[in-house]
């Protein structure tokens, strides 16, 4: 079947664009009406009340702890953030109560409520075996078991706030990064808007997996001015998910963008100050012709929120997502407890919102509708208070993490050695569409070696997908993915919008949700647009979640230096990402290594920045057609020698080999060590070589200042000082910006002669 070719003709007939209508506050039912309509049982209503109380109790505890006024633990010294969401309970519990056990959420730095609510609602939906798995060894059953699991939920939440080993994230994340992946809570996120592309990526994975799950992406009004959030709205609304390109898999992303509009960013006023629209729901109209089914909802009315999210989830499950809901609510406290609030709003405003408090209003409805007696309501209030007190005392006395474990959970040492049977089933549309041809010597170039590795891994494991700008019909800017769309279809190989942050961020969410995405950045320079998603999200979630989740993704980024593209398309930036703990950073220099390492990267369970050089794309080498991987973190001696060691990576290895050749003519024998990965770094091989030669030049194409060459040089001096016969010298690009001029760029980048000159300084 031929690829889809656009045929868009000019069409300038006058017309008026119809942006449609967005309805607001249409929900009319009270509790009595909901009970009558059997949309809720009395018992469920009482549970909703209890869940809101649970949220408020935990946050009220935080407020009191700051003044030593929480009676069960009056002397406990709580260190950590105090971003309480008191006032927003109706939104959190209302939304989560409309979700199923395995539906997902992402949340925010003000996420105690979302996290507590998702947990307690999910727990109430669990069967006995699932409940038992959360409290192994418990002898309880039925209601007692449920109560034990709910208390465990409160305990693990408070323990995380207190930084204890028993916390949901083992004390590594804290309240701003709390997560419980077992029930689809993919994490609160302390970067405003940071969780939104993650949720979008998870939705993308659920679509790919044909799951009937949905994800509710909580984010505040402030986030809806953040670039990556706007990227995510567009990403979720792409028509390729639902139009003819999707062929027989027409399905919108099952995501609910729930705007928790509590009226303030930190203190910036959404409506009156830092936004241009009165209703943030209008954002939806900018991204989807159907306005993402947007509605404006009363967030102080738990039943209104529950209703809206129930209907949104239904749309998503039918493949009609995404949905955007603006839920208006109110934050009674300031941004944190250090915020006195009175600089930017009035007491009268606060009083007016407190007067329609979601909890108090719902309590009145419970009594009015005779859904519960006053005694039953009081009993729940006491239950929540006592449960929280017990959990807090236990958490305060719980074991701290062991100091020696400070970097435990940075990386996982796992990889996919054997693909589970369910993921081995791969449908090939055209088996040889992406086949790489070898020359008569069995050689292929570096670009095709990467492609061959990608293709082999996609055939091996159906969780591997590849996307980025122009990777589909066009076969990527360098023809590296040519034929892969035809071979695997658009579910697995697709074009993305020009949204680098979202390319990387959706990969994080997709990886958390079970895929093994390969995301492509056309130029490494663009990684800076995605730096939050790479550095704060991809790199950090394994650790911050206390190893609850793995983030098996590969970000491929190509370096354009050396072809006269100037300052914004030529940078060698791997040193920056090597400085971010949590990422692996790989940069092959040969075709053979490129195939072996891309395959190893896809199989590895850590997030990986895989750097490619456009200068090397045409370099040929003998690459076996067989399935082989190169272990990550093992350097390779590309040439043996005894007088001097050249250590480097990437295209600088080619220069180092040329330099070694030039020196050989003078009787000097140089050894060339290709580290192949900056992180993990194989220092042993480097030190062995330096022990042999006593002299070392570290080379790369990165600009000198702050380059990873400095890290290697200083480590050599630290670990092998007595082996050194001369100072370690570094060779890199000039401390400048890559110029367009060929003459200038030649002077800017290091070459073999520079390496020879550096060597001669110490020989």
């Amino acid at each position: 079947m031929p690829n889809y070719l656009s045929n868009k003709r000019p069409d300038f007939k006058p017309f008026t664009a119809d942006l449609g209508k967005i309805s607001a506050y249409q929900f009319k039912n009270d509790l009595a009406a909901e009970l009558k309509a059997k949309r809720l049982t009395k018992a469920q209503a009482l549970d909703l009340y209890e869940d809101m109380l649970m949220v408020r109790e935990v946050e009220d505890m935080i407020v009191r702890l700051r003044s030593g006024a929480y009676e069960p633990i009056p002397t406990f010294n709580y260190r950590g953030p105090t971003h309480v969401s008191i006032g927003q309970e109706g939104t959190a519990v209302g939304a989560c109560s409309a979700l199923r056990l395995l539906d997902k959420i992402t949340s925010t730095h003000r996420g105690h409520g979302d996290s507590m609510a998702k947990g307690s609602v999910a727990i109430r939906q669990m069967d006995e075996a699932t409940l038992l798995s959360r409290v192994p060894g418990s002898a309880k059953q039925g209601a007692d078991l449920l109560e034990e699991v709910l208390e465990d939920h409160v305990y693990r939440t408070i323990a995380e706030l207190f930084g204890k080993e028993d916390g949901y994230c083992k004390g590594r994340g804290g309240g701003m990064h709390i997560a419980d992946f077992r029930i689809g809570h993919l994490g609160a996120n302390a970067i405003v808007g940071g969780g939104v592309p993650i949720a979008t990526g998870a939705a993308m994975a659920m679509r790919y997996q044909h799951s009937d799950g949905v994800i509710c992406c909580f984010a505040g009004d402030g986030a809806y001015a953040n670039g990556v959030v706007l990227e995510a709205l567009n990403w979720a609304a792409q028509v390729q998910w639902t139009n003819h390109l999707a062929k027989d898999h027409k399905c919108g992303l099952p995501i609910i963008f729930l705007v928790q509009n509590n009226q303030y960013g930190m203190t910036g006023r959404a409506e009156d100050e830092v936004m241009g629209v009165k209703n943030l729901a209008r954002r939806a109209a900018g991204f989807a012709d159907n306005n993402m089914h947007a509605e404006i909802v009363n967030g102080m009315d738990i039943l209104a929120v529950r209703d809206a999210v129930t209907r949104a989830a239904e749309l998503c499950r039918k493949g009609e997502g995404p949905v955007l809901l603006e839920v208006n609510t109110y934050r009674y406290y300031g941004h944190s407890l250090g915020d006195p609030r009175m600089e930017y709003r009035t007491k009268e405003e606060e009083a007016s919102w407190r007067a329609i408090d979601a909890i108090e209003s719902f309590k009145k409805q419970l009594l009015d509708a005779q859904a519960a007696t006053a005694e039953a309501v009081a009993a729940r209030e006491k239950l929540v208070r006592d449960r929280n007190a017990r959990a807090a005392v236990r958490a305060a006395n719980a074991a701290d993490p062991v100091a020696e474990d400070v970097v435990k959970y940075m990386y996982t040492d796992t990889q996919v050695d054997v693909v589970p049977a369910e993921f081995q089933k791969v449908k090939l549309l055209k088996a040889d569409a992406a086949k790489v041809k070898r020359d008569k010597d069995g050689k292929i170039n570096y670009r095709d070696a990467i492609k061959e590795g990608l293709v082999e891994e996609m055939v091996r494991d159906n969780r591997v997908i590849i996307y980025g700008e122009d990777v589909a019909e066009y076969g990527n800017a360098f023809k590296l993915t040519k034929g892969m769309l035809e071979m695997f279809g658009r579910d697995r190989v697709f074009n993305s919008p020009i949204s680098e942050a979202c390319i990387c961020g959706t990969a994080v969410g997709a990886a958390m949700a079970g895929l093994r995405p390969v995301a492509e950045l056309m130029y490494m320079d663009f990684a800076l647009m995605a730096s939050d998603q790479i550095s704060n999200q991809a790199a950090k979630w394994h650790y911050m979640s206390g190893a609850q989740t793995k983030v098996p993704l590969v970000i491929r980024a190509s370096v354009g230096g050396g072809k006269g593209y100037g300052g914004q398309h030529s940078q060698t930036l791997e040193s920056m990402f090597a400085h971010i703990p949590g990422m692996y950073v790989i940069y092959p220099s040969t075709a053979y290594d490129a195939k072996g390492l891309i395959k190893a990267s896809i199989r590895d369970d850590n997030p990986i920045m895989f750097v490619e050089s456009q200068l090397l794309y045409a370099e040929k080498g003998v690459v076996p057609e067989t399935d082989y991987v190169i272990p990550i973190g093992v350097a390779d001696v590309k040439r043996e020698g005894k007088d001097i060691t050249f250590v480097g990576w990437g295209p600088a290895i080619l220069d180092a080999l040329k330099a070694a050749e030039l020196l050989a003519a003078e009787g000097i024998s140089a050894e060339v060590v290709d580290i192949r990965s900056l992180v993990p770094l194989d220092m042993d091989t480097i030190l062995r070589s330096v022990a042999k030669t006593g002299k070392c030049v570290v080379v790369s194409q990165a600009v000198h200042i702050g380059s990873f060459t400095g890290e290697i040089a200083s480590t050599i001096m630290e670990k092998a000082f007595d082996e050194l016969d001369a100072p370690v010298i570094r060779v890199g690009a000039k401390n400048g910006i890559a110029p367009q001029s060929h003459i200038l760029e030649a002077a800017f980048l290091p070459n073999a002669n520079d390496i020879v000159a550096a060597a001669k300084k110490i020989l």
Partner: protein
Amino acid sequence: MPSPIAMPKPGQFTEECTIVKWLKKEGDAVAKGDILFEIETDKANMEVESFFEGTLLKILTPEGGTVPVQAIVAWVGQQGEALPATPPPPAAPPKAAAQPEVSGQKSEVSQTKTAAVAAPTSSSAIHHSPSAIVPVQPAAPRKLKISPRAKALAERSVINPAPIRGTGPGGRIVEKDVLAYLDAKGYAQLKITPTAKDMAAKEQLDLLALRGTGEAGKITVEDITRAVAEKPKAMSKMRQVIAQRLTQSFTSTPHFFVTVSVDMTDLVAYRATLKAKKLPYSVTDFIAMAVTLCLKEFPTVNSSTDGKSIWWHSKVNLGLAVSLASGLVVPVIRDADDLTLLELHDRSAALIEKARNGKLLPDEMSGSTFTISNMGMLNVENFTAIINPGEAAILAVSSTSKQPVVKDDKVVVRQMMKITLSSDHQVIDGAQAAQFVNALKAKLEDVALWKKLV
């Protein structure tokens, strides 16, 4: 709150001290008054007591460490207490100005001098021959420019790389220079027993500088032992101060020497009768008393000068040179002119005892106005001493021995003792020195005087 233990300031102008030994270790219980550690100052070793009780939480300055006075060297507190961040050691106080004050004619000058003085010791250099005095401060060794790898090779080869000519950048000695040097010196032919090589490496000897006395020139353990004995060793702080002070005195003060023979026969006999009566007086006591009496008669000899003015000391602070294994110290009998012979004896005996045990306090070793160096027990006929800086003279007392002397035109056997006054010619002339030593002689030979004084 833990209490800081500071390096004490043992003397007014002490700037830094070295911890010689810790008597408590981290974690030990400490009571008030317990000895925590011993320090070496430029004058002596001292023990430092704790003012606090609790546990020795942390030692900041290990044995051998030198810190400015009043720097925190340790913390005492309750077990498990957190330590406050230790501030950096205070800057060393400014150098003491050694300007004596003319008006206050007491012991200001004492601050400019220390223990060191020519005295009983086996080192002849200190006593007589100026030519034998070695430079006190050797030039700091030139920093050798050598790569770590070359240095490691030299260490492994147990050789001194200093003579090697460096051919690396900036003249640095690099590995190939060491290899060439070893080759040129026939290192490969060197024979050495493994034990000897280990010892040589430990002692940082240069194998190429060793002479092997074993079979076929093999270097043996005996060769190493000999080389180690000959190896330069760092002088103790005390020895360095002695060297510096005496060199300064001997090279900047014009010394001259006047000797007389004292007939001690009668005094020795009288002392024997006293001894029989269990009275403790020693010959040194008589000499000290006689010197004190004479100094009151000859104030010029009990004076100081800065080369422009001279000032007399109204009191006699008598220094007594005492030989120790590690050097010598001069305990000071303060206000000797106020003491009876018995008091003088008691004070001098107590100070000498403390000196021998290394327990002298800094203030017991400063402020002398005149010094006696007595080698009477060491069987010497005569010697001269070097003036303690800041003083005008020093008396060298030699052994008493039977000598044929002419008395009443007859040759008789008498117990004779030579005393030699070294005088600073800046303030004392020959005649004064002669009068002083003869006055001393007269007093020592006058048994009637001693019978009154005892």
